[in-house]
């Protein structure tokens, strides 16, 4: 072989080795290796719990107490349920009560525990052209938006929030579609949807925690108009948003870690965990983001 060939091969392989070493030093130690030695609980969670920072705040206590590592996969409720049905996760944290009941009834999930709520609120432009702040019900609020011709941004992604939105439209006897022009399904997460609504001076339905936790300067033109404490619609049962933990049924997927999932459910019901949940947000945002369900 010519000398240049050798020198090229040597330098390229040196480069690759250096790059990989750099990757291995700074990256994940368990890269491409099974982590069978540590107990790992895989949770598919709705994005609101991850984006708001709640899980980052409370999970270290669980991980330490049970010597278990938690892998969090933040997706919409629809996708979380599919991951659970296929046995790709051990537990889901979701918020779509009717779907959850169906999910358990079909034998996909066990040990469903509803532990907290995070009510929905309707947010919109500060000048409120549709006068949502004077609405008499959640359905009335959305009717006003439809009548005014103001834009409404919908999640449109089969998430828990999307299902709730459809339920409220139905309660008002309406079924909007994107062909109406003012109704804009974006098919994205709550954070992106709020950013879009802010740019479009549109209304949207959001859970309160995500709205409070998102960087305020990014949604400066949006205001909560219906459903927040002190506003009409506070405590409206239609805006209730209970969250549940459901373990994947070990009978349909024996390889899932039901033991770890049960530990997690036990831990969720501990007084210390519930206290951390109810206090979360006070320090950073001046108010709690999640409310415990009485008697849970």
């Amino acid at each position: 072989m010519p000398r240049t060939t050798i020198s090229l091969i040597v330098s390229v392989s040196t480069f690759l080795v250096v790059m990989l070493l750099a990757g291995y030093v700074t990256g994940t130690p368990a890269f491409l290796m099974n982590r069978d030695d540590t107990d790992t609980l895989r949770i598919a969670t709705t994005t609101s719990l991850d984006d708001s920072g709640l899980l980052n705040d409370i999970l270290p206590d669980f991980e330490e107490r049970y010597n278990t590592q938690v892998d969090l996969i933040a997706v919409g409720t629809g996708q979380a349920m599919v991951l659970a049905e296929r046995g790709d996760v051990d537990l889901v944290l979701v918020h779509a009560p009717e779907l959850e009941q169906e999910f358990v009834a079909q034998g996909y999930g066990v040990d469903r525990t509803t532990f907290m709520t995070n009510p929905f609120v309707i947010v919109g432009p500060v000048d409120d052209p549709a006068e949502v702040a004077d609405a008499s019900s959640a359905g009335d609020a959305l009717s006003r938006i439809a009548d005014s011709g103001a834009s409404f941004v919908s999640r449109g992604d089969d998430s828990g929030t999307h299902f709730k939105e459809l339920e409220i439209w139905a309660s008002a006897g309406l079924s909007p579609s994107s062909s109406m022009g003012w109704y804009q399904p974006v098919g994205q997460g709550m954070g992106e949807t709020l950013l879009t609504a802010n740019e479009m001076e549109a209304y949207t339905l959001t859970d309160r925690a995500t709205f409070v936790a998102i960087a305020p300067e990014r949604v400066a033109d949006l205001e909560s108009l219906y459903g927040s404490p002190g506003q009409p619609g506070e405590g409206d049962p239609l805006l209730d948003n209970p969250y549940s933990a459901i373990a994947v049924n070990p009978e349909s997927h024996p390889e899932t870690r039901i033991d770890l999932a049960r530990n997690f459910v036990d831990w969720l019901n501990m007084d210390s965990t519930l206290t951390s949940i109810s206090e979360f947000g006070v320090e950073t945002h001046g108010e709690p983001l999640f409310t415990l369900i009485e008697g849970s």
Partner: protein
Amino acid sequence: MTDPQCLLNPATNLLSAWTSVAGLTIQVSATAIIISALIGIPFGTWLAMNQFRGRQVLSIVLYAGMGMPPVVVGLIIFMLLSRAGPLGGLGWLFTPAAMVLAQVIISLPFVVVLTKTSVEGISSSVSEQLRSLGATDRQIARAVLWEARFGVLVAILAGFGRVISEVGAVMLVGGNIDGQTRVLTTAIVLETRRGQFEQAIILGAILVGVTLMIFAFVLHLSQRTRQTSV
């Protein structure tokens, strides 16, 4: 910043988090492109130097593969690796291995096609000459590939650039798990969703910086070998 450790020392923690995310990004994409090169370069060379039935069809399929949306590749791999899927037993879903697999599939058409075109650009004249001198097929292939080395380098870099900046497939099959499968692109999506645009932009700058360093280094090497070989 609700993590108590972050409250203690936000700058250090953020920096170490970013370093490990950048490290994993390189680990995954470098591993993927090495595998892709090991398969794609011989295959591309073989395609360029051999005539056979269906060669045209195969080329069209490979060209089309360059336009395949990565998220579709991700979805197919997700369904294969899911526990309910045929390869579920491997336990690869939501691990870096799944991300590497996705990136190999995404980059392979680029490596094969670009290797093939650069070899074709050289092959006819050089190989005729060598054949008349009595060289074997294997010797001809080696010589032609050597002549086409800079084109092949571009093939590898193009594939690498595609996979390191890709987000849809690695999000689906990796799951964007903090400390496990979070890479620069999925971290950018997360920070954007949280409205933390500054952090998203910084992560984007790190991605560009990493890519720039790698490309500059490789091009510098190729420049040096080009000079010494003249």
